[in-house]
């Protein structure tokens, strides 16, 4: 580990990407992620990469598509309305199996919404987002340190599985300053040999490579679909990541990701001070979702409280994991509002009464 630095989340993410060997960044300004774009503009060219400000998010994601097709580590970043514009290109990349790192510093919606933090893009992130049957690997940091750490993991997983990987952040994680240490990371050791499929010219007269997402014959398209679904199953099996906090003796389990897990952890401490045995499961990967771990914990605890900064999106995946075996309650704030620890404690108390603790 290097020395400890005080950085904004957006800047820490950008610095980590450069250290992880990103060679192409294509993006478009939008609040609250613009520091990331500006950091790349200031630093990437001088450190061996290419920065380009695109004319739109639509163009940016297609530049990423083209550059990724050469086997180069590439990325883009945006915030919610811009991420909607990128969905077309992301769908094409998912089908053509092009690796890249995507970053959505989420703001409140729908529509132009607000520039304040939100988790309202959960469905869009983990259920596909664009057209067709596909998934992204979705990583959810909850600190400036993780804004950096998950970049390395994101690139490695993208390369390993030939899949676009998304860091689902939010406006607060992007803007807030915390200390961060950048790990040792030898880029060369992590790069994957993509030469069997990249389009860089038919060197030495080798056979043609082409990148496409078009398969007009239904039999062929179904083969591709099955291949993608098989890949997602392997990812589900191998790459699920989560953090468990005081779940060993818990009666009430909080499930929260990203920024809302920070408020929830404070609420957990406050509730424990009041004698309530509360634990927390924090998914770090939203796809793959820690279904098995939640199912396991549901057999131990008496009730589950899902806390999100939206109208209730991840709670559906908790329901799918647990079924109707125990009560599942939800607390959410929207529009850029952040759930406060005391509000969450009240919900914990309500749930405790309901399950007769």
């Amino acid at each position, binding site marked *: 580990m290097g020395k400890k630095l005080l950085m904004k989340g957006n800047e820490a993410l950008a610095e980590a990407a450069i250290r992880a060997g990103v060679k192409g960044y294509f993006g478009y300004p939008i609040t609250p992620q613009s520091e990331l774009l500006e950091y790349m503009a200031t630093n990437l060219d001088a450190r061996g990469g290419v920065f380009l400000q695109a004319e739109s998010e639509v163009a940016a994601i297609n530049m990423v598509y*083209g550059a990724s097709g050469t086997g*180069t580590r590439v990325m883009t970043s945006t915030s919610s309305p811009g991420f909607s514009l990128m969905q077309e290109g992301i769908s094409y990349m998912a089908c053509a199996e092009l690796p890249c790192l995507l970053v959505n510093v989420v703001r409140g919606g729908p529509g132009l919404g607000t520039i304040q933090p939100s988790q309202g893009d959960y469905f869009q992130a983990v259920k596909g987002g664009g057209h067709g049957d596909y998934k992204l690997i979705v990583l959810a940091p909850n600190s400036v340190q993780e804004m950096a750490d998950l970049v390395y993991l994101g690139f490695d997983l993208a390369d390993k599985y030939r899949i676009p990987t998304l860091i689902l952040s939010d406006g607060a994680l992007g803007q807030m300053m915390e200390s961060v240490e950048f790990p040792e990371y030898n880029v060369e050791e992590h790069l994957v040999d993509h030469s069997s499929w990249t389009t860089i010219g038919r060197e030495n007269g080798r056979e043609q490579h082409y990148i496409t997402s078009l398969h007009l014959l239904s039999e062929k398209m179904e083969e591709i679909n099955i291949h993608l679904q098989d890949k997602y199953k392997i990812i589900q099996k191998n790459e699920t990541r989560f953090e468990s906090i005081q779940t060993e003796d818990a009666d009430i389990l909080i499930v929260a990701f990203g920024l809302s897990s920070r408020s929830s952890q404070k609420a957990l401490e406050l509730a424990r001070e009041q004698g309530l045995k509360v634990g927390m499961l924090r998914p770090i990967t939203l796809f793959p979702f820690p279904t098995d771990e939640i199912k396991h914990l549901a057999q131990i605890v008496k009730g589950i409280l899902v806390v999100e900064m939206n109208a209730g999106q991840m709670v559906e995946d908790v329901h799918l994991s647990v079924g109707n075996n125990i009560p599942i309650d939800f607390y959410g704030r929207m529009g850029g509002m952040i759930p406060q620890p005391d509000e969450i404690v009240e919900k914990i108390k309500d749930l405790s009464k309901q399950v007769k603790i």
Partner: protein
Amino acid sequence: METTREGIVCNNLDQMDVVFERTKVLHDTPTSYCPGCGHSVAHRLIMEVIDELGILENTIGVAPVGCSVFAYHFMNVDMQQAAHGRATAVATGIKRVLPDKIVFTYQGDGDLAAIGTAETIHTINRGEKIVIIFINNGIYGMTGGQMAPTTLEGDVTSTTPQGRNTLIQGHAIKITEMAAIMDGAYYVTRQAVNSAIAVRKCKKAIKQAFQNQIDGKNGTNFVEIVSNCPSGWKMTPIEANRKIDEEVIKYYPLGDLKTPPKGA
């Protein structure tokens, strides 16, 4: 050589001089294009140029959405298939990370001049050092003959059944003229493939465009090829080629629209 019911039969091929060969940069396969379509000729010209310039091992093409969506099945070069209209953005991504490679796009009028207008204009405005080949046949062939941004006034298509009315559907867009006024453009030309002489001139222009990129000239090379669509126009190939001479090039005149200053 003798003429039989099966055609002309040649018994002594090995004793004859080869005066023309199909370039191996084209796949040895039938294309999906309709008989008489200009796409096939345009494909051949580009592949011959790549062959003659010796850049096959260095070249990456970008195919669009439209009739030429399967260009990579015919052009035997490394290729990426782009989303509708996004070919020049994809090409930008390739060229920016691999600036020493030769990159070209091959796009129809709907792709380049309707849904991809923003990408087209901004790619040229940035002066991306690529070749853009723009096939203008004034119709959406792939989807069955709807109005294109370049459909001429009065022309009947499936979405202009009374003929294109400029008061309702606007004017046939002159995007090549727009390209020519941009500082990022290095070489802008409009060619055709409806006659032997036009084909020869067109090949020369394509070669110039690629040579400019090989030489690292500072800007975008844009080659419009006025083409036909016998199926979409509901004409025989001969009638379609005649329409190009009699109508299309009156509105879209052939020739160079921007050439670099001498010594540039």
